[in-house]
Structures are given as C-alpha cells and as structure tokens.
C-alpha cells in the first residue's frame, strides 16, 4: 500500500495535465487531455496499431546490441589478457567514447541505405564502447587469489578465460549490459527519427509532421513503457543469474 501511495507525484502530475488540457488553457493541438491520450492508446493497441513499428525498432535495437555484446566483450577480455592490445585500443576507446556517434549515421546510411542495416550498425557502434569498458574492467580485476587457485589446479589459458575470468566478470558485465540497453533503444529510435525507414522513431516524426499530437504522446508513452519493461525483465534475469554472487543477490 505504501508503495502505491509513494507514486502520488505521478498522479498529481497526471491530474494537473488533465485539468490544464480540459480547461482549454492550451489548445488541444498542443496538449491533448491525458485521459484522451490513454484511451486512444488502448484503442489503437487493441486495433493492432504500433505493433509493427515496435517490433521493427526492437529488432534493430537488439540486433545491434547483440553484435556489440559479442564484439565488445571479446575485445574487452582480450585487452585484459594482452597488454599490447590494451595499449593499442585504449586511445581509440578514449576518443570514441565521448564522440557523438550519431554524427556518423549519415555515413552508415550512405553505406547501407535507410533500412535496417544502417540503424543496426549505429546501435552496435554506440553500444560496443560500454561493453568493451565493462568487460575490460571486470576481466582485469578478477581477484588474484582466484587466478592463482585455478593455476594451482592446472587450468589452461583458455580454460582460465572460460572457467574463471568470465564467471568472475559476470556481475560487472551485467552492469554494463544494464547501461547498454537504454543506449541501444535510444540509438535505434533516434536513428529512425532522423532517417525514417519505419520503426517507432519514424512513426513519431511522421505524427509530428502531421500535427497529430495525440499520437506523439502515445508513442512517447510506448517508448517509456518499453524501456521500463525491458529494464525490469533484465533485473529479474540478473538476480536469477547471479544468485551465487554475494553482493548482487540481495539488492536491486
């Protein structure tokens, strides 16, 4: 009960929104009533609207995310294993991290057109950096005692990576994943807003161009919901995967 009560600021804001819209302080083209938006959203969803664009966006986000994960984790762990690689990659990552990678979208479009590939690759490009950093950080700080114990028990170098480094790095890696997920979604939506080619982002800009404010709000709510649902699912997955780990098992 206390948890529901603690959401009062949201209820308050929704109420203010409703009142402001209904009393005509602002024309409906700027601020449609909250109730109207929610009701219309349900109608649209029941009619099967938005599902295609949602799936398109999610597909792009996850494809890019998966590519980034594979490349990023491999690179990060390799950097922890081989000093020369670390020395070579670090300047590249230092320059790449703060660089606004969205600026490269037109280049990707030039190379791959406006359909899926350019957007998937942008997502991958954006998400690879947090993965590399998380994987490197985790792999390079495996407690020395664990490595030595494994060595004493005749573990090969490859075995070391898969049996010791990877499991020990898992908690930090999953934290990196949690950071990368919203980045993937944002990049997918943003790329669609800029370059079209379907997806929720494309629908959003389309609605804006035709002054369909209600649709704009509906899509914003959907994006919010998608982000929230995925994050919640991820947290449940993390708790399950890491039930052996002392610190994460008990907290958020």
């Amino acid at each position, binding site marked *: 009960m206390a948890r529901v009560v603690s959401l009062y600021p949201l209820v308050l804001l929704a109420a203010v929104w409703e009142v402001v819209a209904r009393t005509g302080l602002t024309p409906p083209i*700027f601020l449609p009533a909250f109730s109207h938006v929610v009701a219309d959203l349900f109608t649209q969803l029941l009619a099967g609207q938005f599902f295609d664009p949602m799936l398109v966006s999610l597909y792009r986000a996850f494809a890019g995310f998966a590519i980034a994960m594979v490349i990023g984790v491999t690179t990060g762990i390799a950097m922890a294993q081989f000093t020369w690689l670390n020395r070579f990659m670090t300047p590249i990552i230092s320059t790449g991290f703060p660089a606004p990678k969205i600026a490269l979208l037109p280049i990707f479009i030039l190379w791959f057109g406006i359909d899926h590939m350019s957007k998937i690759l942008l997502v991958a490009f954006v998400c690879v950096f947090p993965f590399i950093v998380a994987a490197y950080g985790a792999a390079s700080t495996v407690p020395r005692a664990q490595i030595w114990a494994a060595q004493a028990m005749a573990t090969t170098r490859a075995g070391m990576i898969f049996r010791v480094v990877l499991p020990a790095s898992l908690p930090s890696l999953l934290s990196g994943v949690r950071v990368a997920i919203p980045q993937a979604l944002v990049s997918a939506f*943003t790329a669609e807003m800029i370059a079209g080619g379907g997806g929720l982002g494309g629908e959003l800009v389309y609605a804006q161009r035709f002054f369909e404010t209600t649709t704009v709000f509906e899509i914003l709510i959907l994006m919010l919901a998608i982000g929230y649902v995925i994050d919640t699912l991820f947290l449940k997955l993390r708790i399950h995967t890491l039930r052996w780990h002392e610190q994460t098992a008990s907290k958020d």
Partner: protein
Amino acid sequence: MSTASRTAPLVAILSYVGSLAACVLAWDLVVRLGLVDRSLLPLPGDVAVELVTLMGTASFRTDLEQTVIRSMLGLLLGTSIAVPLGATMALSRHVRGFFEPIVKVTYTLPKTSLIPLFILWFGIGTVTNVLAVMLSTLLPVLVYTYHGVEGVPRVLVWSGRAMGTGPVGILFRIQLPAALPAILIGVRVALGFSFVVAIAAEMIASSYGIGKLIFMYGENGAYVPMFAAVTAIVIVAATIDFLFARVSAYALRWSDTYSAQR
C-alpha cells in the same frame, strides 16, 4: 624523479598518437587497395584537405559554433538545476519522495524522443534544441549528485558539526566538496549526451548547426564534405571531453577514489 616517470607522459602521448595514426593508415590502405569504393569512403587525405577548406569558411565555423554553444548551454542549464535538486533530494526525505517517482519514470524515456514534441510546441530552432539538451543532461547529473551527497560519510558531517559548522556550512563546506567526484562524473556523462542530443536535434529538423550540415551534405551527395564535417565535430567533442577530464583531475587531485573514467 626517475627516468621512468619522466618519460611516462611522453610514452602515453606517443602511444595515443600511434594508435590513431595506425587507424588512419589502415583507412588509407583500405581505400587505396580498392577494398572499399572511393565514392563510399574518401581518402583520409582528401577529407583532411576538405576540412581545412571548410574551416576557412565563415558559415561552416558558425554552424560548428552553434552546435557547441547549444550543447554547452543545455549542459549548463541542466547542471544548474540538477545539482541543487539532487543535493536537496539527498538531504530531505520529502523532496526525495516527491521527485523520485518522477525521475524513475522519465529515466527510461529517450530524451531525443522529446524533440518532435518540442518541435510541435516551440517550432524548429534554438529553444527546442537547448531544451532537449537540458533535459538529457539533467537526469544523469541529478542521479550522480544525489548519490554523491547521500554517500558522504556521516563522520565527516559529525566532525563538521562538532567543530561549530552550521547547516549551511555543512552543505557548502562539507557535503558538496565530498560529493564533487561523483558530481563531476555525472557532468562528464552528461557532456557526452549533450553533443549527441544537440546533433540529433539538428538532424531531425533545424535551420543550422553541424548536425544539419552533415545531414544536408549526405542528402545532396556531397560525401567528402560530409566526412569532413563528421570529423570536425568528433574532434571538437573529443577535445572538450579531454579538457574537462583534465580540469576534473586537477580539481579532484585530493581524491584517491576518483580515476579518469574511460
């Protein structure tokens, strides 16, 4: 000072330049060997020449300036709101109770998605862009400030009080300095966002800015200038981030937990 510590910065610079040079070299080879078509990927040399030419034109420089100004302005506004709010949230249960659900809900909303809404409300232009940047920077700085102030060890606050520091003094002399490492990390994260959102806004709909320019060059098939413009903004953003990291490191030279976050 041993020889090792004296040459260490030099080695760092050399390896930095070396890595990037190797990448540029690889780029050059890939095009020359015909692995990638020249129309898709111009030679680094051509891009460099174009960049220098463009930097000589006033309109290009103005566009570049506009993007940087919008980013920095949005960052400044976002930080000015986020730091006091984050600190207050850490210190007052009631303030926290009011804002926490709002923060949790808006966290998952991509701030770039608000750009079309802002275009509907404020039209195309600086207000929309700066507002979008401001909102995207507000959240990370807020969260980091909150955690920074909340995590100040209570023995520091208690010592301050035992030594005659009043509540205002506790906030400005103890809590904020102690939270500074966290706050600066938040600002650095926000710095990254500020450029992305500013450029995204310009690409979606704007009358000027480097984002718009890149997009236009792409649309009109002017690929070499497009690559040049992308290079320009990447260099500018990376440089500003580097400078910020340096200033942070100096301001936090007393801290043994802060490290250059990469």
